[in-house]
């Protein structure tokens, strides 16, 4: 019974995918509106069931469903792992997934690819659930690849636009680079531990020494996978381009769930990572650099979705920083709250875009506060949450990471706070330019502005509630809370906690001080943004305006795309052209065709032996007989 429930959670979205995918030409969109979100809703109910009966699963978290690959010493069962970590992820994926599915019913209403869209979305949720539930690396990898595929399909959902296709390809290829790291990591895990199941690998790893080079190699390789999937430096450039997909896709895949898979994977492998302090340092530097770097780019972006994309990259950076200092709970907490408020931001942005008939440039918006009140209020809540204003969810989760960071290294804390301040600035810049001042679009557009229908507005409100109160999951002791999430997740991270040295305890006074400083910084930034973009009405410069060099550098996203093009794409294309024109066409093709031509030529020549003349046949046969007798008997 328990296994059946567990099995059904990913199976239902798969079923939805099969129904919608196979019948996408015939199924009326009315049915799709129920099948698409309905399967996810059922999964969500089952996830809740699992969550509230968790004590049943806690006894034996490993659920063997069926044998799968069994070759020699390699034994990979089809098994699910249901522990606090995956239970939390289940809720986030199915919960947020369901809300976004409902929203999509309204957002995609008039799209000719309505059924196809929901088929892909259901397939995505299925893959994501597989990723989360897998009890060994290969099953996780199936999900990992599955979400990558769906991401590709959905970024290029409007495949008639060539640029969108390019964006989809870019995302896929960037992810493949990371996936290679993941694969190599798996191979190394297998050769080291002779198993790929989480329980066997982790229990063996426990007894290994701190700083073991093999573990370091494994963790680094897996981290490369995470870098690709979670858009960290240097593999982040696909995520901004991925905004080509429909906005609900950006919300679900490129903000709330898929991109956090890397964080989940590292949290899952926590014991390996705490044994590799060098890797942890690399993760910390990467995460911090990404957080700051992406935030700086976000300040100068004018596309509403691009700003949010860079913001996502930046927030993922925070999660990785949290992981790198052993704040696994903090990272997972931030993952959950980020899923709420970032999904809300994207859906709000979608609502704005929907209202403006496809307009995405914030310079052409403004004054939407009165026109779109529901969107405005929910967007405001999300913005406050991401900016870290108490008592909204983002404040608590970000604070937990920052606190751990301070205990680890005050320098890193300083940089992270700078990033948080930048976050507050660019988010309020976005808010002010979109919803404040006067409308800057055409008259024609002004008349068409309309608030989104309830099917879109209700998901916004649901997410707003989550974004506002999500912090309740883990109220720190400081505010009289019980650190519920930490307690819930502690069994997962128990091994890691046993290995790591206890961080220096920080007194409550220091904690208050740190919080105060962060908060003050963010508030100053909000005021600054207000001053610049509302009072002084700045920020509307056209693309071709001249700027000082540093600003131009950031506006052009540090020329990273151009740099990659120059140092990676161009040389690879050059080498490929060489291999195609010279090696392939001149040598391999000629060799292969030569063999074929030789065979054909031999055949065409040999057939003339068959003259039809009996005398000739006899002659050859006698020759054969003589040869056989001569060679065998006389010699």
């Amino acid at each position, binding site marked *: 019974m328990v296994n059946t429930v567990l099995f059904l959670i990913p199976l239902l979205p798969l079923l939805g995918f099969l129904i919608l995918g196979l019948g996408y030409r015939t199924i009326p969109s009315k049915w799709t509106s129920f099948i698409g979100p309905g399967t996810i809703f059922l999964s969500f109910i089952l996830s809740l069931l699992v969550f509230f009966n968790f004590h049943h699963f806690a006894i034996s978290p490993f659920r063997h469903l069926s044998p799968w690959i069994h070759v020699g010493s390699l034994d990979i069962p089809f098994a699910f792992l249901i522990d606090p970590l995956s239970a939390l992820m289940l809720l986030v994926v199915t919960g947020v997934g369901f809300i976004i599915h409902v929203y999509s019913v309204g957002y995609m209403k008039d799209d000719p690819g309505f059924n196809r869209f929901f088929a892909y979305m259901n397939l995505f949720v299925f893959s994501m659930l597989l990723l989360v539930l897998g009890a060994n690396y290969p099953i996780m990898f199936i999900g990992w690849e599955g979400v990558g595929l769906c991401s590709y399909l959905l970024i290029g959902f409007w495949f008639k636009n060539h640029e969108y296709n390019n964006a989809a390809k870019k995302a896929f290829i960037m992810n493949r680079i990371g996936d290679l790291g993941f694969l190599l990591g798996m191979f190394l895990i297998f050769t080291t531990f002779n198993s790929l199941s989480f329980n066997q690998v982790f229990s063996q790893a426990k007894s290994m020494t701190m700083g073991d080079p093999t573990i370091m190699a494994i963790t680094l390789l897996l981290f490369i996978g995470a870098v690709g999937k979670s858009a960290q430096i240097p593999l982040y450039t696909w995520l901004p381009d991925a905004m080509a997909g429909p906005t609900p896709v950006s919300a679900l895949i490129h903000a709330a769930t898929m991109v956090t898979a890397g964080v989940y994977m590292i949290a899952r492998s926590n014991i390996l990572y705490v044994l590799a302090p060098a890797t942890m340092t690399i993760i910390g530097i990467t995460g911090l650099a990404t957080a700051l770097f992406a935030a700086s780019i976000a300040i100068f972006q004018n596309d509403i979705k691009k700003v949010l994309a860079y913001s996502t990259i930046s927030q993922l950076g925070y999660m990785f920083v949290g992981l790198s200092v052993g704040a696994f709970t903090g990272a997972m907490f931030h993952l959950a709250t980020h899923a709420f408020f970032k999904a809300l931001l994207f859906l709000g942005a979608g609502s704005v875009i929907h209202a403006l008939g496809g307009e995405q440039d914030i310079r052409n918006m403004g004054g939407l506060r009165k026109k779109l009140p529901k969107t405005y209020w929910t967007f405001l809540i999300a913005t406050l949450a991401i900016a870290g204003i108490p008592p909204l969810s983002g404040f608590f989760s970000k604070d937990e990471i920052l606190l751990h960071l301070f205990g680890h290294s005050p320098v890193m804390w300083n940089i992270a706070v700078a990033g948080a301040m930048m976050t507050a600035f660019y988010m309020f810049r976005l808010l002010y330019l979109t919803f404040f001042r006067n409308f800057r679009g055409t008259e024609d557009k002004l008349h068409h502005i309309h608030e989104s229908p309830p099917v879109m507005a209700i998901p916004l409100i649901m997410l707003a509630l989550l974004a506002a109160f999500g912090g309740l999951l883990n109220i720190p002791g400081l505010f009289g809370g019980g650190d519920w999430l930490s307690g819930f997740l502690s069994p997962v991270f128990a091994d890691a906690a046993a290995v790591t040295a206890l961080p220096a305890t920080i007194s409550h006074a220091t904690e208050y001080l740190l919080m105060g400083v962060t908060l003050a910084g963010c508030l100053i930034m909000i005021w600054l943004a207000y001053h610049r973009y509302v009072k002084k009405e700045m920020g509307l410069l056209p693309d071709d305006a001249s700027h000082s060099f540093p600003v131009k550098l950031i506006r052009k996203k540090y020329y990273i795309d151009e740099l990659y093009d120059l140092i990676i794409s161009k040389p690879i294309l050059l080498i490929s052209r060489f291999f195609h024109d010279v090696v392939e066409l001149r040598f391999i093709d000629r060799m292969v065709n030569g063999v074929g031509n030789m065979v054909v030529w031999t*055949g065409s020549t*040999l*057939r003339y032996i068959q003259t039809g003349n*009996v005398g000739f046949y*006899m002659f*050859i046969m006698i020759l054969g*007989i003589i040869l056989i*007798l001569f060679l065998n008997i006389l010699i």
Partner: protein
Amino acid sequence: MTTIISLTILGVLTLFLGIMKKQSWLLPVILLGLVVSMVLTLRDWNTFSSYYNGMIIVDNVSVAFSMALIFSAFLIFSLAAHYYRGVLRPLDDIYGVMIFALLGAVMMTSYGNLIMLFLGIETLSIALYVLAGSHKEAVTSNEATLKYFLLGSFLSGFLLFGIALIYGSSGSFDLGRISAFVTSCAGIYPPMFLAGLFLLIIGLAFKIAVVPFHFWAPDVYEGTPTLLTAFMATVVKTAAIIAMYRFFTHTFHGIHGVWDTTIWVMAALTILLGNLTGLYQPNLKRMLAYSSISHSGYMLLAVVAFSAMSDNALLLYTLSYSIATILAFAILILIREAHGNDYFSSLNGLAKTNPSIAFCLTIAMLSLAGIPPLAGFMAKYYLFTTALEQGLLWLVIVAIAGSAISVAYYFKPIMAMYLKESNGIKLMVETPYKVSIFFMALLVVLIGILPFLVIGLL
């Protein structure tokens, strides 16, 4: 033994029905008789007996291959009603001679004496000379029978000479005594005996159509009436290969170092030449002739690679080869009827006009080429594995290269059927004929998926 008796009775009965002018009874009686004969054969399973002072030996190998032969004949007879439907003259002679040929073939699976072997071969061959020329009005048929007879009798002389030389040196026709003689020689064999041995190889190689004794095959296959070509390509070839297999792996196994290089070279040459020449054939029938030559080469692998597994491998191979070949010939018959020729262009667009027939021919071609999951793939797989276990790496490489080449010509009809524009002629097929075709196609798939139905028998 009961097999031989029952087939003899069936043959006589067929001729008797002809005298009684009961033409319409012929095929039902023959098909029923073949089934009875199969049942009687099956009763000999696991009996291991010998008759007439070791003239005939019945063991599981002979039973299994007799069954395969009779089953192939049964499939061919199931096509006969359609093939001869326009023929007005009595057919009891053709059918009777076919059954006697089958009788000869069965004798070749269960001989215990060289005299029996020669009797079997001659019963088979003389019947075939007649069958090849059974379409009296056609010049091609006359040419086929003449060529076959000239070359066949010529090579029969060598075979008989070989038997005589072996008798001369060992003093017996009995396989057991010859085997004992081989052991008693202790490594030093009289040249006369060796000459006899190789002449025997040459005689049998001619029947199987092995290079360089294959020349008759394309010409005779092309001229012979198509139904009887199918008989030649399957029943006759299976009988000859099993005769050779039994002789060399049982009686002469003790001296395999003496003869296996010769067979090795002949197998390699046959595979290469058969497949290479097959590439350039303009029509389906001639292509199938070369295909059948190259398959002789593969079957020789089993003779060189004699081991515990090779009995099974050879049985699976002959069975899957026979069924796929009869299936191909059955469709060839339809095409020749509809178009008057069997150039590949006659197959154009068959997938549009007769999709099910086109699909069955595709299955036959793919199986002969050895594409999984069809019977031909499994057969090749087991045969090559057996050969590899015996250390015949290079021969297997040649065989695989040959298979790769063969794909090129096996795909010709498939490409014509599926990629070319149709010429609008629809094949007319009656239901019983169609059932036979589907049954064979099903068998090819089934054996491919469940090869252990055959592979565990021996």
